[in-house]
């Protein structure tokens, strides 16, 4: 008997009307100067660059470009604030300022979320529910540590480092700034921070929040610019610590630059995480986890689960479920409350993703994209699966940093462990199984800084985050995140 073809149709039928978040309450200046010594300072070169909305390619504001002179000014301001004010304050007093910043962030959460989505292209659902609240939580969490540092490291003398130079990426603009600034301030350091050039707005809003919180001048300095500005921070000789989150390529340059100096370094770099589904896993929830793992923030996530390993016995089922689930993903206007996948952060990044999709096709991998419509204007990319791939494909080896998933099958536990670890990276991994003992076996053998079991992309300020191998070193978040900003003498 010929089996009738069974298919489910998700498109059209009952569609959701547009539900855009209002932008009427947003206060953005036309032009942003540098935030140095508690004041807005014009760049010495007089140069400004545009920051645009990747969803419609419109200019949002002009941003100052900091050069060597400006960075030097910022470092001097940070040093002065460190020597005269911040290092002299008690932990309790420092904590009060940090709590105040956290509370003002909460008060302005809606504005921050909308600006984050405008500037970076991420769906408002994520900036509203994840980025902004989590950023505020980091300030709350580290505010709590400020007067308890000696309890975090018993029998050791804790001392602040001095001035920290910090460089943050464009994928979680405000959240990464929070990860950097909150522990630095709690430990008694002052900072010079450079946000990514495509997404500087929320960092500059945070500078305004620091002013509103009455934070002493010079404790937080924000200098905007591209790679050259970052290099000035890295190479400045009055900086005690470099914290960088970004690409592995730049991370390597930074490490070379600080070699032979006294600067402490933490690097949080790329990843190509393995998300592993065993046949005994709750498959529907595993599929949901895979979706969250790779399509969260358009795949612009260093810990994205970009390699999926499926046990061959359930491969067909998982593929079917994955494809079905992708049909109800909504790609489009980042400000629409129903959008699941927003805009790709920049034209440059979109080109990189397109390049890898082309490579995947040329390598002979099979590709799947849902039928969803994508806007004509702006930088958008459909969620994409590549299957029938191997460890030897470039799309499974290299970090794409976009909504592209490479799917492989496996047969045994030992095979999947060796393949999961067979990468230059080691930031994160995911394991899906109903069996607790299997989870413990896997987590102890996977060489990744974070391993999620039966969930993915869950973050908490109390939980340390960081990688192995080319994913970097040092930990951010949790108690571990404190030691990156302290000198510990026994």
């Amino acid at each position, binding site marked *: 008997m010929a089996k009738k073809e*069974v298919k*489910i149709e998700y498109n059209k039928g009952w569609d*959701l009307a547009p539900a855009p978040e209002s932008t009427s309450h947003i206060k953005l200046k036309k032009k942003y100067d540098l935030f140095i010594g508690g004041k807005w300072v014009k760049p010495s070169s007089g140069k400004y660059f545009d920051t645009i909305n990747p969803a419609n390619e419109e200019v949002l504001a002009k941003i100052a470009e900091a050069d060597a002179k400006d960075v030097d000014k910022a470092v001097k301001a940070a040093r002065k604030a460190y020597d005269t004010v911040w290092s002299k304050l008690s932990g309790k007093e420092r904590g009060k300022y940090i709590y105040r910043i956290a509370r003002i962030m909460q008060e302005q959460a809606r504005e921050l979320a909308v600006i984050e989505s405008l500037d970076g292209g991420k769906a408002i659902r994520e900036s509203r529910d994840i980025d902004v609240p989590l950023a505020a939580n980091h300030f709350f969490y580290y505010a709590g540590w400020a007067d308890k540092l000696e309890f975090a490291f018993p029998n050791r003398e804790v001392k602040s480092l001095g001035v920290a130079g910090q460089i943050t990426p464009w994928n979680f603009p405000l959240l990464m700034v929070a990860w950097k600034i909150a522990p630095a301030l709690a430990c008694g350091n002052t900072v010079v921070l450079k946000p990514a050039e495509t997404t500087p707005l929320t960092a500059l809003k945070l500078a305004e929040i620091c002013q509103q919180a009455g934070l002493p001048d010079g404790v937080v300095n924000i200098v905007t610019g591209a790679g050259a500005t970052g290099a000035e921070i890295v190479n400045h000789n009055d900086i005690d610590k470099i914290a960088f989150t970004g690409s592995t390529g730049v991370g390597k340059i930074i490490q070379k630059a600080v070699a032979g100096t006294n600067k402490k370094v933490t690097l949080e770099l790329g990843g190509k995480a393995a998300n592993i589904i065993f046949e005994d896993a709750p498959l529907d*929830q595993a599929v949901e986890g895979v979706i969250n793992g790779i399509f969260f923030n358009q795949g612009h996530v260093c810990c994205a689960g970009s390699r999926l390993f499926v046990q061959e016995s359930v491969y067909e089922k998982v593929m079917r479920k994955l494809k079905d689930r992708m049909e109800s993903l909504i790609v489009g206007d980042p400000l629409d409350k129903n959008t699941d996948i927003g805009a790709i952060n920049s034209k440059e990044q979109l080109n990189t993703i397109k390049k890898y999709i082309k490579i995947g096709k040329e390598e002979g991998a099979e590709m799947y994209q849902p039928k969803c419509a994508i806007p004509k204007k702006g930088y958008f990319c459909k969620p994409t699966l590549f299957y029938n791939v191997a460890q030897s494909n470039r799309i499974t080896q290299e970090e794409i940093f976009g909504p592209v998933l490479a799917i492989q099958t496996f047969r045994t536990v030992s095979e999947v462990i060796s393949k999961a670890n067979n990468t230059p990276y080691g930031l994160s991994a995911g394991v899906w199984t109903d069996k607790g003992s299997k989870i413990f076996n896997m987590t102890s053998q996977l060489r990744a800084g974070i391993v999620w079991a039966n969930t993915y992309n869950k973050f908490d300020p109390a939980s340390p985050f960081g990688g192995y191998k080319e994913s970097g070193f040092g930990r951010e978040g949790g108690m571990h995140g404190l030691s990156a900003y302290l000198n510990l003498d026994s």
Partner: protein
Amino acid sequence: MAKKTSIRDFSVTPSVDQVGINDRITRIQKRSIKKESKMEGLKMILNMIDLTTLEGADTKGKVEQLCYKAQHLHDAQPGLPTVAAVCVYPTFVGVAKKALGKSGIKVASVATAFPSGHSSLEIKKMDTQIAIDNGADEVDMVISRGRFHQGDYNYVFDEIAAIKEVCGKKVRLKTILETGELGTLDRVRKASDIALHAGSDFIKTSTGKIKPAATLPFTLTMLEAIKDYYYETGIQVGMKPAGGISNSKLALQYLLMVKETLGNAWLSNEWFRYGASSLANDVLMQIMKQETGNYQSKDYFSID
């Protein structure tokens, strides 16, 4: 004795992760259903309601009033659909059938020693037969939860199959799992698989007599089971959450969950129902709000 190979082994069924289910539901709840999609959804919901009265105090008069309401939800607003069915005890099926006449609204009857299900198979079959003889279009049976907890999965399966045999092809069988008594989502999934494979036309969460009644996690677990069964056999089975859905917002979330899980083919009262008594008026209030721009008092909507 060797078992027949055609009998499925229900001791092993797919596992369900509570945390993951909740994550998925949070995504659905955060969808914004507004304007024309809200209106369209609300009208669909009205047309999917099984208007229900299952009280010890039910009388002929009460059932007749409910049947009138089912056909005239809110005459002040023309163009509204009717509900899908009226759901009553077997003894009131005749009354309801007569009252509903040729309206096209179905009569659903609970049966099989509703709500506990503690009775012999003979009595359950008779109960079902009486409902059908009185003119029921649909039968809502309860599974034997006691036997299910004892691990007699084949007994539960056989019982459903036997009741379906009584129903025949014409009468649609809705199988109530009473999810609030099953304990975990894993067991809800197991009961769903048993009910699906035994030939149910619908699977239904609850009797309405136990708390929790219908919830989004229970319903999602059952929808996933329906989907897997559909892919496996090509047979489409309906879903009916019942009890505890009393406002439009929640009902819209259920509807969106159906769409995102099972697609457009399930978005009609042939395949999706709400078992509810007070939901209709809340939906009507929302429709009038959309139409007029103002909320009206509850007293502008009839209670039957």
